[in-house]
């Protein structure tokens, strides 16, 4: 660890890893609950067109990716809201179009395969201080959205009809969560790569929910898992000369497997404790029979 801290590029990469580890699972918790686990993948594909545009116009590829993927995310949300049946195919078309367009545009730029490769699979160690500032700003914006609208987004992702019957601006919030996911993809793409980017949004959440009981708890545990896998994945890749993006993702998957094993144990123990508790009448409010309370179904 101290060895890799000697290099400035590794120090930058480490800060970046922490930022990504925090933001991706925070947004991912809402995305998973909304059953949009593949949204990140889709946005990743579309972002590639943005990178191509950025390279072609010799502006910033990150800016291009940001604009195009946010637009793409909003388009996906609009398609989803418009039609239930056609949305699936429309999304697929958008994804393939984004990927193919990106490859063509980078090629048209005379771009080398390496630059395309670095966006597809990430190259966290080539990140500059300026990149880091941009990513830090975007990460702050994403975490700000989660802090500010977290309660509303929770209800939206839980039950959209109840959210509407509570007077929440459902359309605005849907676009907000999709756009936030797009920004998260852009934050993570330099490190993890566009093809693996949504892994860090989904896998830590999948791991956390094996062990947690609540939404907030899941989000915090997922963020901890995200930071742990990003930082140790990076350190491991430095140590053993492995590509960082895939190392981070494999570590997150390893943590998921561990969480599944741990969760099975915890649930078994809880089930046993639950059977014992059934004989003890739980405290109940007025007018409600205490006996009903002790009936806990499922494991």
């Amino acid at each position, binding site marked *: 660890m101290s060895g890799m801290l000697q290099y400035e590029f590794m120090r930058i990469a480490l800060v970046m890893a922490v930022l990504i580890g925090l933001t991706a699972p925070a947004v991912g918790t809402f995305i998973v*609950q909304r059953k949009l686990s593949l949204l990140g993948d889709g946005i990743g594909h579309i972002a590639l067109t943005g990178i191509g545009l950025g390279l072609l116009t010799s502006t910033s590829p990150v800016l291009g990716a940001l604009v195009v993927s946010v637009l793409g995310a909003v388009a996906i949300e609009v398609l989803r809201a418009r039609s239930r049946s056609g949305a699936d195919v429309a999304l697929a078309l958008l994804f393939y179009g984004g990927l193919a367009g990106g490859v063509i545009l980078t090629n048209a730029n005379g771009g080398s395969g390496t630059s395309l490769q670095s966006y597809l699979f990430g190259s966290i160690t080539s990140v500059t201080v300026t990149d880091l500032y941009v990513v830090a700003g975007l990460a702050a914006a994403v975490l700000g959205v989660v802090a*500010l609208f977290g309660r509303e987004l929770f209800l939206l992702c*839980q039950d959209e009809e109840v959210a509407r019957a*509570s007077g929440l601006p459902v359309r605005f919030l849907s676009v907000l969560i999709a756009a936030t996911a797009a920004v998260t993809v852009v934050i993570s793409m330099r490190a993890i790569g566009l093809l693996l980017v949504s892994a860090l949004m989904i896998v830590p959440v999948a791991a956390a929910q094996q062990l947690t009981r609540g939404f907030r708890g899941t989000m915090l545990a997922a963020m901890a898992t995200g930071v742990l896998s990003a930082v140790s994945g990076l350190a491991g890749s430095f140590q053993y000369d492995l590509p960082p993006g895939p190392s981070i993702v494999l570590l997150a998957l390893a943590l998921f497997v561990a969480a599944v094993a741990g969760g099975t144990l915890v649930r078994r123990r809880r089930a046993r404790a639950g059977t014992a508790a059934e004989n003890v009448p739980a405290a109940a409010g007025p*007018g*409600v029979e205490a006996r009903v309370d002790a*009936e806990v179904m499922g494991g």
Partner: protein
Amino acid sequence: MKHDPTLPLHDAPPEKTPTEQAPPFAMTGGVVRRDGREVLADVGLRVGTGDVLAVLGPNGAGKSTLVKALLGLVPLAAGRTEIYGTPPARFRGWRRIGYVPQRLPMGGGVPATVREVVSSGRLGRRSRWRPAVFNDRAADRAAVDRALETLGLTGHARDSAHLLSGGQQQRVLIARALAGEPDVFVMDEPTAGVDARSQAALAAALRELTGAGRTVVLVTHELGPLEPLITRTVELGHGRIVQETTVRENPARDTATGRPV
């Protein structure tokens, strides 16, 4: 002048007597089509303050569609419907409405504690563009505590809502609506999939709510233990109202406040 529906009645005394006010729900000639088929056909329904209305009928009669249409969750193909005198799309007084859906959706499987679910019932009290983060935390917490206690869920506040039994989950959903301190409850099959024992517990909890003079619209297959609470029934068949009965006089309808204590 019409009473501003965004203002709760107890905060601002209405200028007209409650009998002249717009009722919680009024639908005229309501039609809902799904895939070209009329799920709801020419439904006229008026729900007055203090009514405890049961929407009855067999499966597929359009009961859930009717209550969703009343709330504007399902668009009308023809006719119109109003919540406190305002079409749902322009209605802003959602804090007065407590909607209890049929079940707690699993979604992507991210767990939520009973307290988290019930707390989200307070979101209707935020103003439209002001995040709930700025709500009065102490008031929120107190209302959530009260709702948990009324439904006998205090001991389960930290449990994962999805691991509870069907009856308990139903009570979580009712507690969520109650936490928002609404004037009107709209409940979609609150007793479906709930065993007889839990139904009695639910009825007891509902008695407490309706005793306070709230308006309730509930969808159900059969009245069961809820029967003594009901003041009116509407029976649906193939999307039409086939029978309407007034079981007993609604004592709350002509009272001055309209808002339960």
